[in-house]
């Protein structure tokens, strides 16, 4: 069957489901009807989708760390600590990278080693290996909602087990998984896997259990935000088609305030517009912001400044959920203490800013950024839809082949990889190479002009060295140098 953007018939889903559950013995334990009942008995305060709607209603921002470790006991202790000492509002179970690649046997071995050595071996929580019961043991110890976290090309079994185990959300998506977590898996295969998980989420929704799905599009690497927003909106639409009803829009902060705020505004506006256009106006959207993915400074005092800084941008953008890296980022998997300290720092920033309702959304620079960004995203998406001859998935596949959708520093070898970003003199990400992006002259001139400004300031042409430099700049203490 060709992968297209169409809701899966129930029987197709259930046929797929058999082989998914057979991927690892723990699959047998999943009983969907029982799982739905289990969720219905959980207090609503432990449901991630409801919690973020509450934030939207109250116009406040909640905090959510990303963390997870291997054994049940350690993971439980970690999340409890973040709940009680870190004082966060939502929690996540980070999926370890072996599980993310369905290497369940290796994950199980790692887990065994961890149990023997009484010390973490895996870099996350192997949901699938722990089975439904193991997941529930952790969930039941907590008072907060927990999301599963982590892009990966095939998260189907993990979804089955993690959701039945009491998780009420997932962060990750087909395109980010394709660009940044695969080497040669075709995009349509990744999308097909995600249609499965979306259909599963949709199933829970149909039965009255709201589940939060967080798209993330593509990882930035000095990338102008349209490079993230376009794939994110595609992820939104693919998910909505399968029946997902609660979608969180992930905003990747890169540090230039005007550009980051414009990202938040533009993404929300266009996501809602495209959802409505494709008949999914009933999908609830909320927003999330998170500090960037580049190398972090190694000194705590500098990271604390960054945590405060990115938290501030999220607050100024009035997002519902704020995520953050931690003071441990450069060194090792965050400890529970490091994570708690980081989020307490973030919350202090919120404590100062939140009450003020500072409004910089009408700032001139934000407006200029938003206008260009919107033009760029529309240009990409409209071309994707056009070459898909009406089908978004086909369009996506063809757009990737032709470079209409493209990414710098992707891990997959199945992309053009021609686009490339560089910072302008104010630290905003601009297109150094437009690759095959379908942009008009106004957009191109805008980016060239901004790069020109930087060249004038430093007195030399920007090149590949500049780009590498830009990727390291923040970890060296400045947004751009």
């Amino acid at each position, binding site marked *: 069957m060709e992968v297209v953007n169409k809701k899966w018939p129930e029987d197709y889903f259930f046929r797929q489901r058999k082989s998914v559950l057979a991927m690892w013995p723990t699959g047998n334990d999943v009983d969907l009807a029982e799982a739905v009942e289990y969720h219905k008995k959980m207090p609503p305060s432990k449901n991630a989708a409801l919690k973020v709607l509450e934030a939207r209603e109250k116009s406040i921002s909640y905090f959510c760390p990303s963390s997870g470790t291997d054994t049940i006991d350690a993971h439980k202790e970690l999340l409890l600590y973040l709940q009680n000492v870190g004082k966060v509002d939502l929690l996540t179970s980070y999926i370890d*990278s*072996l599980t*993310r*690649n369905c*290497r369940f046997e*290796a994950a199980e071995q*790692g887990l065994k080693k961890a149990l023997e050595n009484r*010390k*973490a*071996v*895996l*870099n996350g929580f192997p949901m699938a290996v722990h089975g439904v019961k193991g997941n529930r043991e952790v969930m039941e110890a907590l008072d907060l909602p927990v999301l599963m976290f982590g892009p990966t090309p095939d998260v189907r079994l993990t979804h089955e087990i993690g959701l039945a185990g009491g998780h009420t959300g997932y962060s990750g998506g087909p395109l980010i998984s394709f660009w*940044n*977590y*695969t*080497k040669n898996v075709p995009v349509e295969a990744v999308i097909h896997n995600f249609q499965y998980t979306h259909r599963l989420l949709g199933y829970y929704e149909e039965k009255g259990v709201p589940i939060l799905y967080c798209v993330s599009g593509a990882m930035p*690497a000095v990338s102008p935000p349209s490079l993230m927003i376009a794939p994110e909106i595609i992820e939104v639409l693919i998910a909505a088609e399968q029946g997902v009803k609660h979608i969180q829009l992930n905003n990747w902060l890169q540090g230039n305030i005007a550009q980051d705020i414009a990202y938040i505004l533009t993404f929300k506006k266009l996501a809602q517009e495209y959802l409505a256009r494709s008949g999914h106006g009933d999908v609830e959207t909320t927003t999330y912001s998170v500090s960037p993915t580049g*190398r972090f400074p*190694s000194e705590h005092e500098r990271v604390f400044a960054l945590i405060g800084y990115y938290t501030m941008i999220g607050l100024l953008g009035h997002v519902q959920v704020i995520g953050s890296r931690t003071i441990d980022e*450069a*060194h*090792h*998997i965050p400890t529970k203490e490091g994570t708690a300290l980081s989020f307490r720092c973030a919350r202090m920033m919120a404590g100062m800013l939140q009450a003020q309702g500072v409004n910089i959304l009408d700032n001139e620079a934000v407006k200029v950024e938003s206008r260009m960004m919107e033009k760029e995203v529309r240009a990409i998406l409209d071309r994707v839809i056009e070459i898909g001859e009406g089908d978004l998935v086909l369009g996506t596949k063809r757009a990737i082949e032709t470079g209409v959708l493209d990414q710098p*520093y*992707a*891990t997959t*070898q199945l992309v053009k*990889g021609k686009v490339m970003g560089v910072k302008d003199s104010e630290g905003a990400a601009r297109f150094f190479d437009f690759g095959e992006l379908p942009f008009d002259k106004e957009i191109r001139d805008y980016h060239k002009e901004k790069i020109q400004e930087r060249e004038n300031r430093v007195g030399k042409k920007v090149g*590949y060295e500049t780009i*590498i430099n830009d*990727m390291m700049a923040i970890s060296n203490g400045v947004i751009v140098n």
Partner: protein
Amino acid sequence: MNKPGGINPSARKGILVTGVIGEDVHVTGIRILEHALRKAGFIVHSLGIHNSQEDFINAAIETNADAIMISSLAGHAQLLVEGFRDKCIEAGLEDILLYIGGQLVIHAEDWDNIEKSFKDLGFDRVYKPFVLPEPVIADLENDLGLP
């Protein structure tokens, strides 16, 4: 993505196979290193991410490489390189240089212990996190007996 630097073919200093091992996706660091290695005159065969031990060995045989440079950041390096030196020897790559770098372990451990454990696994050079390209190039030149 395999962007060659401006290589001067007469200055080819050695043949290198580079890549990320295992299920790890951290590609940025090795890409930057590759760029610097090419600029310094090495021939670099880049395997990108998601490589098994066999992928590295096959590429090294195919390209007649002088060294294999493995990057690993996700913290599972120790699990992933066990037995690698033996497999290299089995495959006839007795003399090949093995370098490893990135962020090798997931705990804040004593560096000397970490270095020793990877040397025991057969690596010639083990690099601390955040090492810049310059010292790596110097080590390569040294280990390959270049002037």
